């Protein structure tokens, strides 16, 4: 179709008059003649409403066909000229509608709102739209030039231009505007003194101009703004900021800034970032986001300094590659160590999601006390979840690091640096069957990388197959079955034996200790091989509204095929054969387990103030009988240990976590739970307590070979005492008293407590309570105190080796306080204080302040932490000071790796998600 133009202009002497213009026959320019041509099929742009009445009085064909518009929230006369627009389109908070107010970015006192104008919702190419023009006065020359004076308004599609004077050149299809030029397009406002416009291509050049992008609340000034044919906006000698009109807290100035509304990016050459007018950063080129799309760009840099790493600067850069995948690079410079490049890549497809990450530092420069001095440091990880079918899933969780110290040296939080084993797992799960008979088939490979300098390597499952099912018969019978076949192995050198000083005479700074590992001390711990475990059970639930009785019977069978056994350990009556065992590479054990679970349910209505609760009282008894199968001394311990004792342990039928030990039992657990349930079903309060009563000693022990658990100097716990406790527990007639309490005091405040009291020895085994107060996303307060009684550990010498016969308190006793709290307008305090009571020192102390405004956020954080190392007795602390400055709108808020130390504040991550722009 051809382009049609409809120009309206005020004729001499009249308030308004109209021209009707059509393109010239040659397709160039247009012909405008008053009342000379019928409108025909001309497309019409809507007219401004306040002019509609006036237009009706003039006898023109077009005006009468305009739809009258009744309401106009904009008065163009008032908002005329840049001098009358000191605030651009800024609308303060109290002037906004409720709906608009919800869209306002946090900490902003207002927002840029595009005033209503006709055509602002126009869809399509504006070049195809008719042009509408009006002015107080107009003049039409024979040479094809139309001159408009006084309140000129030209509109084409979604585009609108206003100025004091304008000249339209018919021959060249161009126009010039002078005096208080205002150009509007959706999400764009340009204001200047002089503009040249090509009406055909849409190119525009504005001198000494200001600009505004509403959606990104960004604005700036430039000597020249060019809106190019391709709709890119190019600014000469310009600045850019997302701060509100009354603030220039930060600005980016550049020689040549390009703003691309299609990609949502801006770029600038010779860019300088100024904070409060002071230049702080220069870059020859910068690429930054200009709207609220997920954008590539720099994330908040972190500048810090700490003892080991020295000056430490991370300037993450985010790559928005596609809607469903992105990447972040974390270039990190550490003055003492060198340049570490870390990156992560995330992806999401309809059937999979995952993350690939890694880091590399070539030749670690740090010498002092660094076990990895001069070596390359790196890690790689891959997390992947894949849905193969609705029922079949596959996942990978794999992390590998160059050395044991990697995360202690480069991790930015205790959470990361404290992990002692890295997961290296591949797993597929198939969920089969239906609701009556459901089953699951799992295949997995599970390996670990031991990151601890003072503990053993774990067994690895290469591979594991598990088939597990559950069958519900109509009459209330329930059958369970489980088969697990796993091959367990580990390196020959798996056993932690101690540390050795690695001295180099010429460079005393390289005096570091390294761990030594060797083989274990007996055949069972060195064994490798496959384990077959099968379990089948049946139970029937007799049930009434007020009671249940569930008898159950299970058979468990475990069988091994072992290698790597040492025949010397099986010499009849030999010194290393306490139990007089026969050499057997395929030991097996079968045992039945009978359980009788029963409970009663009482309730009553109680009134607390205004609220009515149902209080329940639920006594429960679980009887477990399983005969002792004394042939388990020859079963190795692959993935089994004693469960941590807790209230939940009362209701389990085995005291071991894996399948290597089938616990004998003749015991009854008695417990009672009471709940306060609100009318709407919300559990406000719960307390449970109980104890196991044993009718016989527990014969099946985790490690039957107590003869070799002498006080080996390599062991850094007090084996004698832990053995005594373990054996005493197996002979006691009652378990410790276990209790748990959960109190949701309000929806924001909750309290939890676990308490385990050893009635036989009269001591607390565990006491832990935690308080969590999260009234809203910006106010977080967490406090916890945890105590767990542990045997005294062996004290260590300067090399980190255990000193036999010298002991130190081994309890876990810690207080952990973390918070983020607004203290004044725009200011929040944040911190974490994690205190190790046992060793009378801080594990981590961090305190910081955050200033959050409409266009930037700044954090100052001081942090002191234990440099996670093997030597408890002489643990070193490290200090760091970190500054983060976030220029909102110039990058996403934070990358996940940079502010890791803030993740120790429970609720921090949710807050950041919430406060994202």
């Amino acid at each position: 179709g051809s382009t049609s133009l409809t120009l309206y202009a005020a004729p001499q002497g009249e308030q308004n008059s109209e021209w009707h213009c059509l393109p010239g026959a040659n397709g160039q320019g247009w012909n405008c003649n008053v009342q000379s041509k019928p409108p025909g099929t001309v497309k019409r742009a809507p007219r401004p409403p306040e002019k509609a009445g006036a237009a009706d009085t003039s006898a023109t064909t077009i005006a009468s066909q305009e739809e009258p518009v009744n309401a106009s929230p904009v008065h163009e006369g008032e908002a005329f000229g840049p001098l009358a627009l000191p605030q651009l389109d800024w609308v303060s908070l109290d002037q906004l509608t409720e709906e608009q107010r919800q869209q306002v970015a946090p900490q902003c006192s207002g927002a840029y709102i595009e005033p209503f104008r006709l055509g602002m919702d126009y869809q399509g190419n504006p070049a195809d739209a008719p042009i509408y023009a009006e002015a107080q006065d107009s003049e039409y020359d024979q040479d094809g030039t139309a001159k408009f004076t006084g309140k000129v308004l030209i509109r084409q599609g979604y585009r609108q231009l206003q100025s004091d004077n304008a000249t339209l050149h018919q021959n060249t299809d161009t126009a010039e505007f002078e005096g208080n030029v205002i150009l509007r397009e959706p999400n764009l406002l340009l204001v200047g003194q002089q503009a040249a416009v090509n009406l055909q291509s849409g190119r525009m050049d504005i001198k000494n101009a200001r600009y505004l992008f509403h959606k990104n609340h960004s604005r700036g000034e430039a000597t020249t703004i060019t809106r190019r044919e391709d709709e890119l906006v190019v600014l000469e000698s310009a600045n850019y900021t997302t701060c509100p009109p009354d603030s220039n807290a930060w600005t980016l100035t550049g020689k040549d800034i390009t703003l691309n509304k299609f990609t949502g990016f801006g770029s600038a050459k010779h860019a300088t970032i100024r904070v409060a007018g002071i230049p702080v950063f220069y870059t020859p080129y910068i690429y930054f986001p200009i709207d609220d799309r997920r954008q590539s760009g720099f994330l908040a840099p972190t500048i810090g300094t700490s003892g080991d790493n020295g000056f430490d600067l991370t300037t993450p850069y985010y790559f928005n590659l596609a809607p469903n995948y992105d990447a972040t690079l974390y270039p990190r410079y550490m003055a003492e160590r060198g340049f570490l490049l870390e990156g992560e890549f995330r992806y999401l497809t309809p059937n999979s999601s995952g993350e690939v990450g890694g880091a590399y530092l070539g030749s670690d420069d740090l010498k002092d006390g660094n076990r990895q001095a001069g070596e390359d440091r790196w890690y790689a990880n891959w997390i992947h979840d894949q849905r193969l079918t609705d029922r079949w899933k596959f996942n990978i969780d794999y992390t590998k690091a160059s050395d044991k110290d990697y995360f202690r040296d480069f991790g930015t939080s205790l959470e990361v640096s404290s992990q002692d084993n890295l997961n290296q797992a591949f797993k597929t799960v198939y969920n089969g069957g239906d609701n009556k008979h459901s089953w699951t088939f799992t295949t997995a490979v599970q390996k670990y990388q031991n990151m601890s300098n003072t503990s053993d390597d774990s067994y690895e499952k290469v591979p594991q197959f598990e088939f597990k099912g559950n069958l519900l018969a109509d009459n209330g019978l329930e059958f369970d079955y489980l088969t697990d076949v796993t091959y367990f192995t580990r390196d020959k050198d798996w056993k932690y034996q101690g540390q050795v000083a690695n001295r180099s005479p010429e460079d005393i700074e390289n005096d570091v200790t390294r761990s030594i590992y060797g083989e274990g001390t007996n055949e069972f711990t060195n064994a490798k091989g496959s384990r077959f475990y099968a379990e089948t059970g049946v139970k029937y639930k007799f049930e009434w509204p007020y009671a249940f009785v569930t008898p159950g019977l299970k058979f468990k069978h475990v069988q091994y095929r072992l290698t790597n056994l040492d025949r010397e350990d099986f010499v009849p009556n030999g010194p290393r054969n306490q139990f007089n065992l026969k050499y057997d590479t395929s030991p097996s054990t079968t045992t039945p387990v009978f359980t009788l679970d029963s409970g009663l349910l009482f309730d009553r209505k109680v009134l607390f103030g205004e609220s009515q609760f149902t209080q329940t009282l639920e006594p429960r008894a679980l009887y477990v009988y399983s005969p002792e199968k004394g042939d388990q001394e020859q079963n190795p311990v692959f993935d089994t240990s004693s469960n941590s004792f807790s209230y939940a342990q009362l209701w389990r039928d085995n005291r071991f976590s894996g399948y290597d030990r089938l616990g004998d039992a003749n015991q009854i657990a008695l417990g009672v739970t009471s709940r306060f349930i609100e009318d709407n079903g919300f559990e406000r309060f719960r307390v449970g307590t109980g104890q196991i009563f044993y009718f016989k000693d527990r014969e099946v022990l985790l490690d039957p070979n107590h003869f070799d658990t002498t006080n080996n100097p390599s062991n850094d716990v007090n084996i004698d005492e832990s053995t005594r406790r373990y054996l005493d527990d197996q002979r006691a007639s009652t378990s410790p008293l276990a209790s748990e309490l959960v109190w949701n005091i309000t929806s924001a405040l909750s309290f939890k407590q676990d308490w385990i009291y050893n009635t036989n020895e009269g001591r607390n085994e565990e006491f832990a309570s935690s308080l969590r107060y999260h009234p809203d996303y910006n106010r977080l307060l967490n406090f916890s105190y945890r105590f767990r009684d542990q045997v005294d550990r062996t004290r260590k010498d300067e090399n980190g080796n255990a000193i036999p016969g010298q002991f130190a308190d081994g309890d876990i006793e810690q207080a952990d306080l973390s918070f983020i709290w607004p203290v004044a307008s725009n200011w929040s305090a944040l911190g974490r204080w994690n205190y190790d009571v046992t060793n009378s020192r801080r594990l981590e102390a961090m305190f910081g302040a955050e200033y959050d405004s409409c266009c930037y956020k700044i954090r100052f954080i001081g942090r002191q932490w234990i440099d996670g190392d093997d030597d408890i007795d002489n643990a070193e602390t490290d200090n760091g000071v970190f500054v983060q400055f976030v220029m909102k709108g110039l990058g996403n808020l934070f990358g996940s790796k940079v502010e890791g130390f803030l993740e120790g504040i429970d609720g921090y991550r949710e807050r950041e998600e919430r406060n994202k722009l």
Partner: protein
Amino acid sequence: CGFQLRGLVEVAPLLSTLKVTTPDNYSQFSRKLVHSLEANNISVSDQAPYTLKVLSNEQERKVASFSGNAQAAEYRVRLTNKYQLENRSGLVIIGPFKAQAERVFLHEPNNAAASASEERLITEELDKDIIRQIQLRLAALSNTDIENAEAEAEAKKLAEEKKKQPL
């Protein structure tokens, strides 16, 4: 002291059949949830008038306490589950609610595989606790509660649609 053996608690007739959807309808959690509902006289069917929709089912593991040299000593497993009740046209009438369950266990640095065994056991038990919390919420609803909530949600939806229409 006022305690009595619990009498028969009827499920709201409107919920006597219920549709259940979870992020993974074939997962162990989903099946346990369905079993548990069925054991409480709610028959699960895709033709039911209301849907129990589990929006998310997240598991998080964090260090609960450290040893003296800042190595993990205890871990805390926390499950967070968000769920809501929807009517047949997908309108949220009750919720979303959050159910949370957590437990701390002692970590064994010398046997990571054993710690993994215990974590798995605990996760299964916490699943049950989450299901119990959902169950309690559903049991507390009466037909009137559901009807009122639905009417309210419909009215709110209507008001929002009106707002969106151009003047």
